[in-house]
């Protein structure tokens, strides 16, 4: 079985740090003007319910949260806790309604940073692989963003992690169209950085496709994705 965190360029220490964030209490969000500035599209890549909470905080400032949680709930056996995201979305309905967003509000695309990660502990003998990947077709194209007046995109996440592999294709296309890409720490503990595509972007593309084809759990008999797997203990 391939472990995504070990297979990809994401560093193991960073992955562990990310997973520990799930258990940690929510942090204080940094909604600095650099994030909420006009003509900016946000990609919020935080652990599930924190991503929702951050999106709701943005909604109060006139930014439209766009949930992109493309995973099925798996109950106790699920590798990814989708239920807590569902709960957070439902709990946020009133706050979202109160936000009174305008039709031309800038978007904040909400992702679950743990969508590809494997928990450090598998609680059951058999578990359901409900991990997922983000694809460029989940987002508007660069052309659509520019037509809507977007000139800048900001990835909001934590712990100064690198850009996740599955966002490379999306960001590279946006960058090629002249949209500046920045990375901000959601807690404001690290300085913002500017992202540019690596020179070997084709290698990352290849890697992402290989991940999509191979690294999500394959069920031995029934093919890829959504497989039931045997736990190690």
């Amino acid at each position, binding site marked *: 079985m391939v472990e995504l965190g070990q297979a990809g360029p994401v560093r193991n220490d960073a992955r562990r740090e990310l997973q520990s964030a799930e258990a940690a209490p929510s942090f204080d969000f940094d909604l600095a003007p650099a994030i909420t500035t006009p003509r900016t599209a946000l990609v919020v890549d935080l652990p599930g319910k924190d991503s929702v909470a951050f999106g709701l905080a943005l909604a109060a400032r006139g930014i439209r949260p766009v949930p992109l949680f*493309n995973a*099925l709930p798996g109950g106790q056996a699920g590798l990814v806790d989708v239920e807590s995201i569902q709960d957070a979305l439902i709990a946020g309905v009133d706050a979202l309604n109160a936000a009174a967003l305008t039709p031309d509000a800038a978007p904040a695309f909400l992702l679950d940073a743990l969508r590809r990660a494997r928990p450090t502990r598998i609680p059951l003998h058999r578990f*359901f*692989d*409900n991990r997922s990947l983000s694809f*460029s*077709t989940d*987002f*508007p*194209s660069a*052309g*659509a963003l520019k037509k809507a007046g977007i000139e800048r995109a900001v990835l909001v996440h934590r712990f100064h992690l690198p850009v996740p592999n599955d966002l490379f294709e999306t960001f590279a296309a946006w960058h090629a169209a002249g949209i500046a890409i920045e990375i901000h720490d959601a807690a404001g503990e690290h300085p913002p950085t500017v992202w540019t595509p690596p020179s070997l972007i084709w290698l990352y593309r290849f890697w992402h496709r290989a991940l999509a084809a191979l690294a*999500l759990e394959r*069920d031995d*008999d*029934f*093919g*890829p*994705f*959504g*497989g*039931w797997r045997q736990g190690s203990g």
Partner: protein
Amino acid sequence: MAMVVTPPEFASRSPLRAGASLPAAEFAAVRRRSALHHCKWDPQLGDSSTLAPFPIFISAADWRQLTRSAETLAAEVDAAERELLQRVPLLNQLGLPSALRHQFAKAPEIGESPSFARVLRFDFHFTHGGWMVSEVNSDVPGGFSEAEGFSSLMAAHFPGYRVAGKPASVWAVRTRLALPVSGNIALLSAPGYMEDSQVVAYLAACLRARGLNPKLVGPREIRWEAGQAFLVGAAEPLAGLFRFYQLEWLAATPLQTGWPNFILGGATPVSNPGRAALSESKRFPLSWRDLQTPMPESTRLFPEARAPREVAYREHEDWVLKGTYSNCGDAVLSRRWLSQRSWRAAWARALLSPHGWVAQRRFEVVPLHTSLGELTHCLGVYVIDGQVAGGYLRLSKGKFVDSSAIDAALLIAEET
């Protein structure tokens, strides 16, 4: 609101007319309700909505004509499948995977597994020569939410028009009539495929609304014991099993998973029956000339089909190649959208693997003029237990309708 966008050059020819687009705010509400209440979980792909903001209208008389044709086709397909089960040599024409072929060959000795609520969806196209049917989605037809939930929401905005039917509700009612209310009904799909999960989730909601007990499962959660299907860990057998999982996929798994019970010798009622895989084969029309079952409506409406080796080289451009078990147009090849080099390569593949392909005579679809421009169409008509239960359209800017098509409501003009 029921304005019609009708270009003069097509007005006298096509029985289909595109309506005007809903205002943006109203259509946004339709999309939102489709997603939240009718399990339409993929309403957007990149920059494109996968739902058309306008309906397609058809007159009641034209719809009746389609209804008669579809029900006749369904009866012919059903009879043909039953004959094929008893005539093993004819199975060779269908290009079945060997594991499936092996199981179907036992049909004359082993009884067919019981089944309930048979669903077929015929893909109609209006051409310059009238209606044609490109294929029947016989094994695992989807699109229930688009044909019922989304279409009903659209119909509410167009007074004087009604939906063509409610296939999900009809399927649920037929299931309710066929199965005991108390037992669990498993709805099987590949849970990693969101587009499949939304279909079973929608049907499950329709069953639940009628007092039945649906369970959404993957193939690992079913076990078979003496022909009866159980949920893993359950002591009571299932009352029924809805299979939204292509039989040729299941046939690629070990026999120990119990998949042959979907076809033969099983005791748990299944929907659709395993023999649906026979007519799902795009090579199904090749068997008609050897059947005793008369297939007049099928012969009239389906384009001519030949084995690739029966098509002369100089005629290649008059044909399209279809993969024997292809879905959503993923293996429909034509010179019209392939380069000369790719087209030659496709024919080489088809000739080297003749059972994996069929040649179907090309036909020209009359385009629909819509607010999104001229679109190719495919009108899916559902037949459930022999009776038409609804329909909807898929529209494409390309030369044919594939997985990138958008869905449109089919609305029938009320007769005054």
